[in-house]
């Protein structure tokens, strides 16, 4: 019995008559929806960035650091006492079933020269498995091999930043560079990886065979010494078992007694990052929740205006009732009017939210991501707000006594 197109037309007309009032009422919803979308975009952007950083670091990554030295009762902090060796790394690879790949690292800073260009950068001595541990493909050339490690050849892989600084646009493959005045052949270029979670430029690096670093570049305090060992577990579920297996293995290899502390630390970076990811998700939720408060306030604005409108149009309601409008005819008329306000506001809010988050991106340099879900959520929510806050005024209108309403001046 209820005629939706005509009711829609009636609603539109009523809203057109009070253009300014309708626009101001919508503004509440526009700001609410816009805020929800922009806030969710900022939050989702942050979450996505952290997820990207996790994957750029290498997934399922564990890092073994050497333990702390104690000098005259002063404990010097993790990494101060060199205890790890290439042999440890090989043992982990052999004996820990939860581990997929292991890469020992001996690194240092060195001056690098090519032609008349020079650049100071981090040089990392490692094994070929480093590339799989860190999920880091080559952009050009070839990786070094186990054979290169065995014979400590002077070959290197360059990060993009190093390439940019030494070679500019030239092709570095096959060229000789000098690291600490020793000539190295460039055999490969690493793909661009971008910033780490800590904001470091991960591309400002050179990879060389670990043995070359030990014997020719940095030296060791005992044979086979490395600074850290990077380990890739087989899967996320294997992170905890891998940690346990490595703990047991290294305690045994380092002859650590029952009550002695470890002379190494295992860090689960993935877990750390996942915690960070979790907390940004909570932040996103919080931002969204705060923004939806303004949507709620917008809804109250709609209710306010609809109540005014019902009072103003008491006589009109009386006329409609006299000529046969039923309870739900009247209710729907006002609900649709409220819904029209909130949905038009919702659409404008979506536009505002999208352009707002683009502006935030441009001005603050934050990455923002507008998910279709957040648009749907905000739009659906504004619809619900319209119906919810439109219902009471509509209900009030439908209960008017037609005789009283007809007499209303």
């Amino acid at each position, binding site marked *: 019995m209820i005629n939706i197109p005509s009711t829609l037309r009636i609603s539109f007309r009523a809203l057109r008559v009070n253009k300014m009032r309708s626009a101001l009422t919508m503004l509440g919803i526009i700001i609410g929806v816009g805020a929800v979308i922009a806030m969710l975009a900022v939050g989702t952007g942050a979450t996505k960035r952290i997820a990207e950083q996790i994957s750029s670091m290498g997934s399922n990554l564990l890092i073994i650091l050497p333990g702390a030295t104690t000098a005259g009762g002063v404990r010097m902090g993790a990494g101060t006492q060199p205890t790890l060796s290439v042999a440890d790394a090989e043992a982990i690879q052999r004996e820990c079933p939860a581990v997929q790949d292991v890469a020992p690292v001996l690194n240092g800073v060195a001056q690098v020269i090519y032609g008349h260009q020079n650049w100071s950068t981090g040089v990392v001595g490692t094994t070929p498995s480093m590339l799989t541990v860190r999920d880091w493909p080559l952009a050009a050339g070839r990786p070094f091999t186990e054979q290169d490690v065995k014979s400590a050849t002077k070959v290197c892989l360059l990060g993009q930043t190093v390439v940019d600084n030494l070679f500019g646009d030239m092709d570095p493959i096959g060229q000789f560079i000098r690291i600490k005045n020793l000539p190295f052949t460039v055999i490969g270029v690493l793909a661009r990886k971008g910033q780490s979670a800590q904001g470091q430029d991960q591309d400002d690096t050179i990879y060389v065979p670990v043995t070359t670093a030990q014997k020719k570049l940095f030296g060791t305090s005992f044979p086979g010494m490395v600074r850290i060992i990077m380990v890739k577990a087989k899967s996320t579920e294997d992170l905890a078992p891998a940690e346990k297996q490595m703990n047991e293995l290294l305690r045994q290899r380092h002859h650590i007694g029952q009550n002695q502390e470890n002379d190494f630390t295992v860090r689960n970076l993935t877990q750390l990052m996942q915690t960070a990811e979790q907390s940004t998700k909570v932040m996103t939720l919080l931002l969204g929740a705060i923004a939806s408060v303004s949507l709620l306030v917008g809804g109250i604005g709609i209710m306010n205006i609809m109540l005014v409108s019902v009072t103003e149009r008491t006589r009109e309601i009386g006329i409609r009732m*006299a*000529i*046969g409008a039923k309870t739900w005819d009247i209710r729907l008329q006002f609900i649709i009017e409220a819904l029209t306000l909130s949905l038009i506001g919702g659409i404008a809010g979506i536009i505002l939210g999208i352009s707002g988050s683009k502006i935030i991106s441009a001005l603050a340099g934050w990455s923002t991501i507008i998910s279709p879900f957040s648009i749907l959520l905000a739009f659906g929510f504004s619809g619900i707000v319209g119906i919810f806050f439109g219902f009471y005024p509509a209900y009030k209108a439908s209960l008017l006594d037609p005789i009283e309403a007809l007499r209303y001046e």
Partner: protein
Amino acid sequence: MPIIEAKDITKVYRLGDIDLHALRGVSLTIDRGEFVAIMGPSGSGKSTFMNILGCLDKPSNGEYILEDIDIGNLDRDKLAAIRNKKIGFVFQGFNLLPRTSAIENVELPLLYDGIPARERREKALEALNKVGLEGRGDHHPNQFSGGQQQRVAIARALVNNAPIILADEPTGNLDTKTSAEIMEIFVKLNTQSNITIILVTHENDIAAYSRRIIKFLDGKVVSDERTVKA
């Protein structure tokens, strides 16, 4: 054949501690096709009686039967449906929707009866033609004179083929000449379309158009005379 049967209708309003007896037992029957004028001073109960006839209000006691339907037992929505199909209202103040074209005003009862748009438009145009407003459907009420607005209101009362038109002082806001024109329309509808017309008025000139005059005083019918007329 009676279209309206009122049996011993009373209406009591409670105003604080006082009971106000607006109607004190009114019984009358009106046949299909009658043209009735209801007269009486203000406070005589004639407006209350009209509201009950129009199914806008229910009697406190007594029975009101309209086309064999006992109105006393109906709920709000059923009453609305009866008003929609059986009764056309014409008010003193016209009561057209502002900012709404004449044709849309006339279509309104059909809208609430669920008639499809095309049919609504046709019937509304036909009703406007009957009251002499051909081609004026797109005008808005504020572009019309009082007499023209009342014609639109009459068209609205006609459009759903209601057998009864209730007119509450339809000429109260109009000058003499326009009043006569409006009354001629009522007479035409009564004689040509056999529509039962019940009209409330103060003026004897207007009442003279009817064929039966019922006078109210203090909530009772004090006289009910048929005037001999063509």
